[in-house]
């Protein structure tokens, strides 16, 4: 673990910040009380900027930023993300805030509900709708998952700014190679057992995808039943679920430095949505999903909660700190790539999103 870590904890009722310094954690909050925080990001491509997608159930969604590690927050007067008037649509929620490639430090992408991609050229102050995806002929046949119909994952290629991959529930994976003008459904090999055609072109209920900057053609995917890997830039997928106690879950993340290392949090499904046997375990693969190990040191049994799609993350230390938050309002920090865990927060509202920065 590195010396200092700032962990952003987005919950259904506000934002908390956990700061680790010399081994001790200090948790502050609520910041932005009562806002639903589906998306948090720490942009470290220049002076650190925190970005938060905050939705008020009364007063609607917004994006707020902090340039002093959460001491103060700023929000533009006009809505940072809004649909153009000609669409006749209103933004329900921001599901993802994703800083773009390192050599394009002004670019930030946002995924929204209803399913749409937005792009910022001013580091997250203002965003514009990416029309190519909005105008895709499949859009009218994208269906909402239980949580809503949203672009919940945005992965920009670290070396080629024209290449972006998004995922949505339900709709599946789409990719562009021309900066967002045209998009191809990229779901070959991903099962949709709940549809008459079990391998459709699109319509899969993808929960999360992850990418490593050193292997940008490889992706990992947690599906609504199914865990997959792509080695061809998301064009096709194959199962890597063997060795997991369940092929269901929400999050999947890669190690910050080792592209073969990936983490997930399996749940039994569909009849129940608990970790198998009530045992709280992060599963780690060190060989790109060929084999998996359940990490248990410091994690509880009789744990009847779940971890949502953006509530698992790593910091960028090596070995990495790994973090997850539960719907029961607990946050755990794992040191040494997840070998050992400690609970650093409890009794929070249900955790929706986590991101860490370390220095």
């Amino acid at each position, binding site marked *: 673990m590195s010396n200092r870590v700032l962990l952003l904890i987005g919950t259904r009722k506000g934002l908390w910040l956990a700061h680790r310094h010399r081994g001790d954690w200090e948790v502050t909050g609520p910041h932005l009380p009562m806002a639903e925080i589906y998306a948090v990001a720490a942009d470290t491509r220049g002076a650190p900027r925190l970005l938060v997608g905050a939705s008020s159930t*009364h*007063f*609607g969604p917004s994006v707020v930023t902090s340039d002093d590690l959460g001491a103060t927050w700023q*929000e533009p*007067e006009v809505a940072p993300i809004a*649909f153009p*008037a000609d669409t006749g649509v*209103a*933004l329900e929620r921001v599901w993802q805030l994703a800083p773009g490639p390192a050599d394009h430090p002004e670019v930030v992408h946002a995924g929204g509900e209803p399913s749409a991609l937005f792009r910022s050229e001013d580091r997250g102050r203002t965003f514009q709708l990416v029309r190519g995806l909005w105008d895709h002929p499949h859009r009218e046949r994208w269906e909402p998952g239980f949580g809503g119909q949203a672009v919940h994952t945005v992965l920009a290629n670290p070396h080629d700014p024209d290449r972006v991959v998004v995922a949505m529930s339900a709709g599946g994976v789409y990719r562009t190679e021309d900066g967002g003008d045209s998009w191809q459904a990229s779901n070959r090999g991903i099962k949709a057992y709940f549809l008459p055609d079990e391998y459709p072109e699109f319509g899969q209920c993808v929960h999360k995808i992850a990418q490593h900057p050193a292997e940008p053609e490889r992706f990992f995917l947690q599906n609504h039943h199914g865990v997959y890997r792509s080695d061809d830039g998301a064009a096709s997928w194959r199962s890597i679920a063997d060795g997991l106690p369940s092929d269901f879950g929400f999050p999947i993340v890669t190690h910050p430095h080792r592209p073969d290392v990936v983490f997930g949090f399996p749940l039994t499904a569909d009849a129940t949505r608990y970790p198998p046997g009530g045992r709280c375990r992060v599963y780690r693969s060190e060989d790109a999903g060929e084999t998996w190990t359940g990490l248990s040191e410091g994690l509880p049994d009789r744990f009847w909660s779940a971890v949502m799609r953006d509530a698992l993350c790593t910091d960028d230390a090596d070995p990495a700190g790994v973090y997850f938050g539960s719907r029961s309002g607990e946050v755990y920090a794992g040191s040494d790539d997840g070998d050992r865990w400690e609970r650093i927060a409890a009794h929070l509202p249900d955790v929706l999103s986590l991101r860490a920065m370390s220095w």
Partner: protein
Amino acid sequence: MRVTLVLPLLLREHAGGRQRLEVEPGEATLAGVLDVVAARHPALERRLRDESRGLRRHVNFYLDGEECRWLDGAGSEVRDGTEVRVIPSVAGG
């Protein structure tokens, strides 16, 4: 024509700390009032309406004591001296 918009405590920070806003709408409707608010206080207006100009579901507008949904919604007529009270719903958990 002058209409008064009365704001709850939660929203006053987006109107320079004021409880009451005096508005001279170009169009004699609630929507016309909110169009003026949008130009003067965009951070306030977008908490009252979404970008498609729809009234937010859990924000209520009382025009001289009548909830606008029982009138004509955003098209409800306002007159000189109308008081529009903004009252958020008490729903939520």
